[in-house]
């Protein structure tokens, strides 16, 4: 097997395809163009080149033609002096709100293949945009821009002028809200004293019940209730409820106990908003509903309590991703559900080129199914670039 990591020929081939792309297509430049910092990763270069600023658009396009970078980023922030070497000297003036969802950060993502990961992350993305940004935060659609990242995720840019100035701890609050962090369960459920007649013909010995919020209550209270009801329905409808519960991370023995407890009557009561189950069951419902309805998000804060999002770099729309050759493609809210990155973001040509594949690989791309064997073969350019980017192939000249 050849050396797939450092093949200069492969890099040159990909770079050449990128060059042709940038010659025929224009990228989408951000507003306040002159106030943004730009950053690039060059083919064969080491690391990222940062702190570049461009005054005029033609300087930027000249740069693209001359260098043909593999990745292009710009700062979500705009600065007085975008090309100053330190953050202080740049003088921050504001920043869009950026959400970056990447399959890397989804639970169990490593077990899925690329296509499945993309599907899963899209589901999260839809939840973020529809349920949180439009509904809870009430952002106007005209301020929301959606992109496929070209890699394994999606980006959402919120450009509402009202949020450009919020600082990083305020942004952190927003992320906490969306990811469901620090939800106080005593604020969601509260104990209510009841008398025994209030439940029709059934009689209850104890005078306390745990009250769930109404599903239509605003914010997380309603969201948790909706999550719980959805779950109960799923468990009830399922052919194998134990299996279903195991999916939610419940141990078999606990699942059996839980099912025993979930009598028709109980289910009915849960739907009426009463959750007077045992403490463990309550905890289980809350946690599972939380996981179900919150957005799993990267924002770089899985290991860090702060989102640096006031200063972050984001891929330039309509640029290409070095590791896939896919385009950072703009999506509308209406087309998000139908959007298929492996069809809609594949922009490189399909003329055949010869490559050597170092392992068998299967993918459906541009509606065509490829079941590739290891070895030398001819493939469309877009697929060759993708496989080289993923370090699975090298070019054969």
């Amino acid at each position: 097997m050849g050396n797939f990591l450092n093949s200069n020929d492969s890099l040159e081939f990909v770079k050449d395809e990128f060059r042709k792309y940038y010659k025929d297509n224009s990228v989408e430049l951000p507003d306040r163009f002159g106030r943004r910092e730009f950053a690039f990763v060059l083919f064969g270069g080491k690391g990222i080149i940062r702190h570049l600023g461009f005054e005029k658009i033609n300087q930027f396009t000249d740069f693209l033609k001359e260098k043909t970078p593999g990745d292009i980023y710009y700062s979500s922030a705009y600065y007085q002096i975008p090309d100053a070497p330190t953050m202080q000297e740049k003088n921050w003036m504001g920043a869009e709100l950026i959400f970056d969802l990447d399959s890397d950060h989804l639970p169990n993502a490593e077990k899925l293949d690329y296509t499945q990961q993309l599907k899963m992350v899209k589901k999260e993305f839809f939840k973020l945009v529809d349920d949180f940004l439009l509904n809870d935060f009430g952002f106007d659609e005209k301020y929301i821009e959606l992109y496929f990242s070209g890699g394994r995720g999606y980006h959402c840019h919120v450009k509402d002028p009202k949020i450009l100035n919020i600082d990083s701890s305020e942004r952190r609050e927003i992320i906490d809200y969306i990811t469901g962090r620090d939800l106080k369960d005593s604020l969601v459920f509260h104990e209510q004293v009841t008398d025994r007649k209030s439940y029709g013909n059934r009689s209850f010995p104890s005078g306390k019940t745990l009250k769930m919020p109404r599903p239509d209550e605003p914010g997380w209270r309603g969201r948790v209730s909706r999550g719980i009801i959805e779950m109960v329905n799923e468990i009830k409808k399922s052919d194998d409820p134990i299996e279903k519960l195991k999916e939610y991370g419940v141990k078999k023995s606990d699942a059996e106990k839980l099912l025993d407890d979930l009598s028709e009557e109980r289910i009915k009561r849960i739907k009426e908003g009463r959750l007077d189950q045992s403490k463990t069951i309550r905890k289980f419902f809350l946690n599972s509903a939380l996981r179900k309805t919150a957005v799993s998000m990267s924002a770089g804060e899985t290991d860090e309590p702060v989102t640096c999002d006031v200063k972050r770099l984001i891929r330039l729309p309509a640029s290409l991703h070095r590791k896939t050759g896919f385009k950072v493609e703009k999506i509308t809210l209406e087309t998000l559900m139908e959007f298929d990155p492996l069809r809609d973001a594949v922009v490189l040509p399909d003329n055949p080129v010869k490559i050597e594949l170092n392992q068998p690989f299967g993918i459906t791309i541009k509606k065509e199914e490829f079941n590739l064997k290891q070895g030398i073969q001819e493939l469309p350019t877009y697929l060759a670039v993708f496989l080289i980017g993923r370090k699975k192939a090298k070019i054969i000249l």
Partner: protein
Amino acid sequence: MVELSLLSKYPFLNASKEYIKDNNLSIQEILDDPLYERARIIGVERVDNAFSKRDVGERSLVTDSDQIMELLSYPIARMIAVCIDDIFFKRRYALGEAIHAYRNLINESPLFLINITNEFKINIKFDKDTHKISIYFVDYLHHAPTRYKEWKMINRGMKNGYIQISHKDLARIIQEALRTRINNELDERKCSKSVYETFSSDIKRIQNSVMLHRKNIEAAPIGKLDNKKLPPCMKNILAAIQAGENVPHMGRFALVSFLHSLRLSNNEILKLFSTAPDYEEERTRYQVEHITGYSSSTAYSPPGCDKMRTYGICPTEEIDELCKKKRHPLSYYKAKWKQEKPKK
């Protein structure tokens, strides 16, 4: 025209400034004229109370004269606070005014509070039928004390960008907005010579007690921490927190995780912070415990110099020779210890 009795209770309102203007009162008159002797005495009282009791204090506001004196004492107190020229003191004074306002505000009607929020450009919705108050989330983020768990946005109901809050919450939000506003005003203004001369003995007296207060705190040794060995970045952040300056979250995070790595207990860290003029035990404890992993089960590790620089909290102008050799604030601190050993 807003009533004088209200203005004297809420002298920070724009209408108060107009009142003073409309009555053609000059600063010089307020400072010199025997007529306003009482306003000047109350002005000093405000400042004293803010420092010692965290509330500028309640006085009788029965007669017109009571009210005018109270109203005028507010700008006087502010001018004195500026001249005391100490960041800790200024923060403390702003807090004392804000807390005092809060204590009055909770007794006012919702509509009154909403009128005040207009002045702070806080976007509020009031439903006349249900009497429900909601606030636009961006304004909530700016002013609500979200470091308390129950103030976190996630624990509030939000719909279409509006968060429902109680009457008391609204008063608290105004308190925070007022505090920020006074802080900014105090920072922007310069001490005027005539104010300094008029109140010089009070100013010096208070400066002395502030200094004493600071000395007491700083002298207290905290566990094994040696202040002098802290790298410049941590020294700066600690000083800023102790002065009640608005330290960004990342700064607090860096310092707390740093101190935690030096094996300071949560209580010791809290003690360091307790000197801040706006120190609130519960809220600070929540933050500290979150970072040190007591309440969140993950203890975060302190950021290295590279990251500190990216976040703009490495004071690049102040770094010393040792900094240049080190890549982590922790190794700086440890190296300082080693430097000292041979001397013993």
